[in-house]
């Protein structure tokens, strides 16, 4: 039987579009006939802090949050945040991580903390299936640094039992009209990364 439930943890930093991405996944999953719950925290945690969204897709979902150690997919818009979330993933899960590195002031202004320059290596050492996407570079090429989220959605899309048309329709529905075209291109670049990726 084809796997019919997916727990997806999306992590990033305030302003990276975590909530829009989780909205698109949820709407696409509903359109594909699934029950969905998604949960996240607003307010103080958004001001440059960590933003986490849980998306749960199944025939019937109870808890709105994922249990630690059971996520099927981690979608990380920032590499160190991907590393920080790695223990939420099950060993056979897939981590899709942008090379984006955002170093907070608390690190640059003190000797107390270090940003892990080798975050991606540490992540690969801990998890079997990691897809690294240079989403920040590609977003720059496309002319808008805020496209990292849509690029990663493109990378992830083939892993879920949701038709490509449903993804594209949902993006068209959820993104502001003048940004639809560029987001569809970003999504396609993500799909390309997925096709070319050798899961390491």
């Amino acid at each position, binding site marked *: 039987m084809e796997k019919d439930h997916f727990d997806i943890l999306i992590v990033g930093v305030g302003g990276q579009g975590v909530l829009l991405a989780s909205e698109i996944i949820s709407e696409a999953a509903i359109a594909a006939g699934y029950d969905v719950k998604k949960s996240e925290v607003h307010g103080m945690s958004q001001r440059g802090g960590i933003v986490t969204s849980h998306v749960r897709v199944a025939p019937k979902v109870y808890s709105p949050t994922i249990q630690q*150690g059971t996520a099927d997919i981690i979608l990380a818009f920032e590499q160190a945040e991907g590393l920080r979330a790695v223990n939420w993933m099950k060993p056979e899960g897939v981590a899709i991580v942008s090379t984006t590195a955002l170093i907070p002031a608390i690190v640059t202004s003190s000797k107390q903390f270090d940003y892990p320059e080798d975050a991606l290596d540490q992540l690969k050492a801990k998890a079997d299936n990691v897809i690294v996407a240079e989403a920040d570079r590609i977003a720059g090429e496309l002319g808008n640094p805020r496209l990292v989220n849509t690029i990663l959605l493109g990378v992830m899309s083939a892993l879920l039992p949701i038709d490509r048309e449903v993804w594209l329709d949902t993006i068209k529905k959820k993104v502001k009209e003048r940004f639809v075209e560029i987001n569809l291109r970003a999504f396609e670049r993500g799909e390309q990364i997925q096709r070319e990726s050798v899961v390491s």
Partner: protein
Amino acid sequence: MKELLSGNEAIARGAWEAGARMAVAYPGTPSTEILETMAARHREVYSQWSPNEKVAYEVGIGASLGGARTLVCMKHVGVNVAADPFMTHAYTGVNGGFVLVTADDPEMHSSQNEQDNRLYARFANVPMLEPSDSQEARDMTMAAFQISEEFDTPVIVRVTTRISHSKGVVGVGDRKPGPEKQFEKDPPKYVMVPNNARQRHVVVRDRLAKLEKFTEMTQFNVLEENGSKIGIISGGVAYQYAKEVLPDADYLKLGFSYPLPLDKIRKFVESHDTVLVVEELEPFYEDQIRAAGIMVEGKKYFGHLGELSPYRVADGMKAAGIVDTVAVSKIAPAENMFPRPPVLCPGCPHRGAFMALRKLKVAVTGDIGCYTLGFTKPLGAMDTCVCMGASIGTAIGMEKVHGYAKGTVAVIGDSTFLHSGVTGLMDAVYNNSNVTVLIVDNSATAMTGGQQHPATGRTLMGDEAGKIDIGQLVQAMGVKNYRPVDPYDYDQVLNTIKEEMANDGPSVIHTQRPCVLMPKRIMEEPYTVDLEKCTACGACFRISCPAIMAAKETNERGHPKAIIDASLCTGCTLCSQICPEEAIILKSQMVEA
């Protein structure tokens, strides 16, 4: 028809479908989106922000007396502010259905405490509904209006962050008008002088007796039988966690959770070998069930602190001996990870005030808002934060006892000042306090997402509005030392605070620049760092601006120089004002050089 709705959106939807004509609130996480949804999607309902939760509640009382079905929403601590009208409103009862939504915040994702407001239902003897997902948030809100009218009482709908901010699939319907009603004079019911109130307290007890019958019958207290010897009593999001862990147990799900259906609970407990109560925060169900002489266990296994989760529920069930194993992470967490606390935005106008306060090393009594982040390192310029409006009173007390040699400054935002800082300032004038108050005014209720308030000139529904002039208000109250300043001018802020701390009598320093997240924000040309001039002294890192980052280039001692992310910089100029090498310059100047 089905829609993907958050709990908050579903509450707004339910109230709209139930024919509500009035919705009123003060913004507060996690409740804010209820009224925002109402104003955006359900415009047949008149919706407004009030200056604070007490006024919001009182506006709600008036609308209900006038016959309208009325929704009043606030975060858990907001109910403390509204508790005065709420407790007596339980005596007067309603005319149009009256629903109070309290959105609690277990785990304190964005709050100063994690009080369990279910206790308010028992405190005031009013009925309470507890949705466990978005569908129930809609359904129970609709039912709450009927219950309110049938039993002549305000009704609490109690949600938590995980209900308010989780989305799920919701079946929805159309709007139906509520009952047509008008205000009818009835002083014995509505004028709560002692003689009348004594009579009404009798009514409250009689009503409670009727509600105790209702709770045994209502569809919202559901028995789910799976033929198990294990019984779980739960409600709210805790029910979902329990179902996740142990789907095949028998459940008594409490959706109408005050008063509790004690007969139903007794039968449920008698017919099962083991019964556990799974609830977040206080032992609200457990204490009442035990007080009725029914033996159950709960808090012993699940704890009193923070949010529950599937993991914590599984762990508690294992300790209780009803599950064998708890799934744990097989991948070890990353070690030595740096923290990423929330910080003030790039270009945030509050930054200049906190740079100056840090420099002066004064005691800073703080308040609730984005600017509470002024306490975080490396700014580290806030010393207290208790509740909305507390900064001014706290500063007065500390100043009166000469509690800190370097002096005390209160910091409060514009929306918080209007919420409950005004009365603190009255105290300062009245009692000849030498307090210095910094009103950091960004023309928005910023932390909750930039909502309007009485000094912004716009209503929630987008209409032009009366506009309080904070400067005139302060001076009309008798503050002689009133100093408007530009928070982007570091020296001006610093010197003004110094001068006003030396002045006798209360002083108000009023910083005025709009929140950088506002739609009409001032987007100036971004700055850049001349790496030739930068000596890596770190002064700009210490103003805690997310746009300023470490460069790969270092000085001879290996300290990183600074670079500025042009996509984040708003051109507020503060970093260039404090750079001792004048290495932070406009991008255009860099090109010319």
